[in-house]
């Protein structure tokens, strides 16, 4: 559908990739760890290695959860915008196909949050 | 239409101005119930609720313009029908 307006209505999005000075926005959320109230948002250069996202921004955001240190990253399962996704930690975000405003989620089998309660 | 008897309600501030109004509503609406909460009263009734000017005037002992209700009204539900003599809330039309 398009908007019902009384005059031509043409505006560009406020969050185009070029608005972020070379970075692209990436969101990451941790499944079954509801203590973190939502996925978080970072601006990252497209050549950032995927592993650096995990060790840098993600560790800062999620590191205070006691499960963080126990994660076996080889077993972690990822989705990108809800679709299965297999990132290579050595490759860049761009080479892993992570586009501007993609939303990543990861599941850590065996780790089920505080007291196993999904939090 | 439907068999469910819908409820209308009228919330008034509970103060000196409304005491007589509330008494009048009680006299004219046997089916209504009155829930007193801090600072207010919520009057609910199945179907319709009527505020009659004459009854209010008897209660407050003076002439009463039903539009004075605007000062102390908090909330209501249902269709409103107002003239000089009565204010009626109802889901019946």
């Amino acid at each position, binding site marked *: 559908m398009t908007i*019902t307006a*009384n005059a031509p209505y043409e505006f560009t999005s406020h*969050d185009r990739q070029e608005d972020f000075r070379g970075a692209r926005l990436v969101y990451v959320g941790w499944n079954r760890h*509801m203590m973190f*109230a939502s996925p978080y948002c970072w601006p990252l250069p497209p050549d950032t290695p995927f592993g650096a996202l995990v060790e840098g921004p993600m560790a800062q955001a999620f590191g205070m959860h006691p499960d963080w240190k126990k994660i076996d990253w080889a077993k972690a399962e990822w989705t990108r915008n809800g679709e299965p996704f297999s990132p290579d930690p050595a490759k860049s975000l761009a080479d892993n196909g992570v586009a501007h405003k993609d939303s990543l989620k990861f599941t850590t089998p065996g780790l089920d949050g505080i007291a196993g309660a999904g939090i | 239409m*439907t068999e469910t008897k819908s409820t209308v309600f009228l919330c008034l501030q509970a103060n000196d101005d409304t005491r007589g109004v509330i008494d009048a509503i009680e006299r004219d609406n046997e089916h209504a119930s009155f829930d007193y909460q801090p600072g207010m009263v919520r009057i609910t009734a199945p179907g319709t609720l009527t505020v009659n000017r004459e009854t209010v005037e008897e209660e407050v002992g003076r002439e009463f313009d039903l539009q004075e209700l605007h000062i102390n009204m908090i909330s209501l539900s249902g269709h409103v029908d107002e003239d000089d003599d009565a204010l009626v809330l109802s*889901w019946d039309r």
Partner: protein
Amino acid sequence: MDIAVTKKKKLGLKERYALMTRGLGWEPTYQSVDDVFPMDTFEGIKIHDWDAWEDPFRLTMDAYWKYQAEKERKLYAILDAFAQGNGHLTLSDARYINTVKLFINGLAPLEYMSHRGFAHIGRQFRGVGPRVACMMQSLDEMRHAQTQVHAISNYNRYYDGMANFRHHHTHLPYLQVPRSFFEDAATGGPFEFIVAIGFAFEYVLTNLVFVPFISGAAYNGDMGAMTFGFSAQSDEARHMTLGLEVIKFVLEQDPDNLPIVQKWLNKWTWRGVRVLTLVAMMQDYMLPKRVMSWAEAWEIYFEENCGALFRDLARYGIEVPPCVEQVRKERDHLSHMAWCQFYQARGTSNFHAWLPSKEDMDWLSAKYPDTFDQYYRPRFEYWAKLEEEGTPFEAQTPPQQCQVCQIPTIFPVPGEPLTRAEHTCEHDGERFHFCSEWCQVIFEDEPEKYVQANLGAHELYKGNLFGDADPTAEGFDPMAAAMAFLKLTPAESGLHKDSEDARNFDLWRGLATRNDA
């Protein structure tokens, strides 16, 4: 003496109303009606007979001035007494002041927006009846904004988080939820605006705002807020009646109006409920002395009251908006999820957060037996342990937000409380995310509108929150620059127990109840 009093026969209410409203309109002679009222047709709503409009209260302008003046006199007498008697020290608890902050920052500016909106559409409708009704509502809304600012200024003299309410409403990320809600309505056409605000917000949802804030004020010893609340609310009965009248009028005019109105009802019921997330949270977590739970208020004021409304509107073919199913499923989760979000993002809001006490949690368990102990108590207990250990949990990173309602994407899949919902689509080569199916439906209906949203995290990363600071300067601290631009000071945010407000309230109340040697 026995003089016969010849009472001059007064005109009846209906006659007075006809003269003082319809009688004020005229047919333009040297301009076409379409040119005088250019905005009331483009939305596709067809009106054949504007005179069929009924104003049930039949309030005329002269009576309006009389009663509004009376309301003001009553209000200011009480506000003066409140200020003169140090009314702020009669509160149940210092935590209560945070609800006042939420009100002045989040809601009072919406009253002003509503004033502007109704002034606008009061000019745009070609029917005289609705123009007069909208003009009165516009004046009411201005009065509400003014009296709220006035009343709350008595708190602003003593406590943090209120002084910059206008700036914060425009810029603080969490306040973009209510702000964008209203801007969405105000940028629709006149019919959409009046259905959105006049009907969906004022009629369907107004009681859910009134109960927590105004009854909440009454329960917590806040005579000032209680009084402006009652005073403003005395206008709401008229607004609600206008809202319902609009719906009936529009639906009776032409069958083609039904799908348009139903679409707006679906949209605005959902938009309204999403905004009420703030209110639900306030009701269950921020009132030291509680009125009723959000779930109870929802049962009384939506299920019971709006059930009757939608049964009545069924005669026109109107159906209960489909989103209501999800609202029911979220009923026992909404306030808890919201408080978890505000607790961990407490560094970016202008009111204080705290963890519910053991007593609070027992109340929450009793009110939410199916959800609280299983899903939320463990979070609060774990966070309480971290607070005790001196390492309180706080989010380190801005959240992902919904493109439409702008709330962080905190909501789970309905019926699956431990699975975060994920709704996404591509538009014009760009990806967008939503908190729910219903916000996505709204986006996809008018994507050109919502791609213009300014989401907090994105604004920060684009560099739009740095004011005049130079991000290329050596040692540039982006967070400090953003806080300066947002005019957010450390005193306004963080934990309640560490706050200046908590300390001062205890100190002043102590001074008020004992004599120091």
